């Protein structure tokens, strides 16, 4: 019986994929992004999908459990709805060994977020504002934002300077 080369290749690829998949489960290898990379997470993390980092596109972000809240901010007009991924979910997803990290923005702004209880405060990396994706000129595409209205203890300069818009990279300490 002659084996068709197409089937053989398909079988091989399937086995290889299965193997890779198995490997990813056990060595913290995450799936790779297919679209434009919006966020890169580096530093003290266990899981990766790129050299020493996790790269995320909008599809991957939207696959993660989303959280949304409405709040007023000094940079928006009136109550605004933000939708995105909770910081603690994101850190868990990349297997971060610490909850202290630096958030970097496209415009070179950065802020170190330390001593913040993300289990209590549902701060998010927002990808939608009022249910619409953000352009860079709208302070997007990603915006680290706190629920200032629901958690009055975050309504201060410390949390406002930590609200990094045009978020592009997170470095876990």
């Amino acid at each position, binding site marked *: 019986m002659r084996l068709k080369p197409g089937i053989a290749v398909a079988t091989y690829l399937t086995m290889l994929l299965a193997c890779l998949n198995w490997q990813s489960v056990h060595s913290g290898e995450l799936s790779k992004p297919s679209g434009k990379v919006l966020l890169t997470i580096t530093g003290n993390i266990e899981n990766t999908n790129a050299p020493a980092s996790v790269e995320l596109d909008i599809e991957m972000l939207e696959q993660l459990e989303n959280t949304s809240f409405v709040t007023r901010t000094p*940079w928006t007009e009136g109550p605004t709805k933000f939708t995105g991924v909770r910081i603690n979910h994101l850190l868990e997803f990349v297997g971060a060994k610490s909850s202290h990290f630096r958030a970097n923005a496209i415009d070179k702004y950065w802020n170190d977020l330390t001593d913040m209880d993300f289990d209590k405060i549902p701060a998010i990396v927002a990808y939608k504002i009022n249910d619409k994706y953000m352009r860079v*000129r709208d*302070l997007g595409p990603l915006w680290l934002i706190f629920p200032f209205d629901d958690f009055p203890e975050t309504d201060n300069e410390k949390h406002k300077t930590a609200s990094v818009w045009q978020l592009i990279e997170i470095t876990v300490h």
Partner: protein
Amino acid sequence: MNTARTATLLTVFFAFLCVLQVSLIAQTLDKTRSQLSSRSTGAINSLTQIDRNLDQLMDSLVEHRLSLANNRQSDTTGNYQTDFEVFWASVTVFNLRTPGGTERMPAATAVLEEAMQFLENNDELVNSKDLLSEADSESLYAETKLLSEKFHNVGHDYFLSLSVFSDELKNRTKKLYRTFLIFSLLVVACGSASLYSLFEANRKSIELIEQSKTTQARLTQVVDELRSGKLENKAKDSFLAAASHDLRQPLHALGLFLGALEKHIQPTGHAIMEKAQQSSSALNRLLSSLLDLSRLDAGAVKVSKRSVDIGKLIGTLEHEFQSTARLRDMTLKFDTSEQLVFTDRILIDRVLRNLIENALTHSRGKVLQVICTVDDKMLVVSVEDDGIGVPSSQQEDIFSEYFQIGNPERDRSKGLGIGLSIVKRLCDLLEIDLKFSSKSQSGTRFCLSIPRSTRPPRHSEVTVSNSSNEGKSQSVLIAVIEDEKGVREGMEVMLDSYGYRTVIADSADHLLRQLKGFRTPPDILMSDYRLRKGNTGDQAIESVKKSLNLDIPSVIITGDTSPNRVKELTDGGYRLLHKPVEPDDLLRVIHKLTEATPQTIA
């Protein structure tokens, strides 16, 4: 009252100052707050950000042009697009974050409008799929540079205005601090002043309360005295004391003369002599009972409680009153079984004596009983008769002075009517509960509740024997100072008749002159209280004692029964005898004094 008003005024002033200062501070703070919020650090940060973003955009445009010139594609080729977007975002944020600030700086508003114009005009060009041509990028660069300079100028102006504001803020803080300091000092000063006046007012009101309390107490006392007739009685007492003094003098002499006369009387005159002596004694008793009342009122009666066998005492009384009872056709039934009580022996004797005398004199009954009943810790001694009793309408009055039932004709042989009031006062003094019950025509009962005692009585009560020791009295020298001739002679006769040696004088000097004729000093000094030339007995005795340099037992005889005088002399340590002195009393005192002092004066 003045301080209270001051306190109120100060407090009001203090409150007014507080409100004024707080409102001033609040005003200043509010102004500063609004100014601070419109000039936040966020605005200046946004401006810096814009400036930087513009520089970034210019750099990207230069890089783009270079790559076009070199005709090669690089990673950074499309960077100007991102930088254009980032610039857009920062302009939007600045627009939102400086609503108040732009109003004050028209330049900023203008440049922001210009920037928005620039962004919208070039949006299509920058974000087209085709990359910028060299010419476009050059013109865009020029435009960007112009905008950058304008933003730079706005930033400079903003910085300058901020520095002016900073100075203003510093000045205001300084002023605020000074105001606060002065205010604090005022608060402390006013607070302590009002606190002081509050304390002062409080102190004064406490004083006032105390004063009013004292006044009230005094008023109550006066009202009580008025209501109980004590004031009236006081006046009566002092009148009696004064009046009895004049009565005493001759009575005293009469007693002494009668005593001296007794030895010389013929047997046939004995009956009359006895009558005369009885009258004299009755007079004495009347005056003595008046005196007792005075003494009680003066508080001159000292209570010394000890264990007393009241049965024995009642027995003595039964014996004494037997003859009187027989005269009045009354039978005595006295309970003389041994009963120990804790009280003053002499005073309880006086109480029982008065009650028994009262029953014998006034009850007109057939039987008089004294019964002792044990009631727990008390012994109830009741004195009971079956006589006329006391009508219920008069029961309240029986303890008042000078009150007598059935004696409207004031028969003085029945006493003055002060026996029961003495009983009442003695019972109060001894803290004995005195109860009285009576029914008209069926008798009267007095009950005394006396605390019982368990300790046996001391048998130290010395009974003075009336039989005088002739041999002993012979050696006793008695010096008498008496200014009234009749009394002086009476004393001399009486004392001589009992075998005493006497020195009689009318003054201290006279006595001292007379004493030179004796080898020994007198054993007893006796003096009348009121002497001639306003001298008093105690002064005379003191001067004699001083001249002889000896402490000689002294007796003062006085007709003055005023409570104050009695107390004064008793306190001075003198033995006091009241006129008229019965010869027996005088002898008893002399005996006591000669026994108490051993004959060391030889």
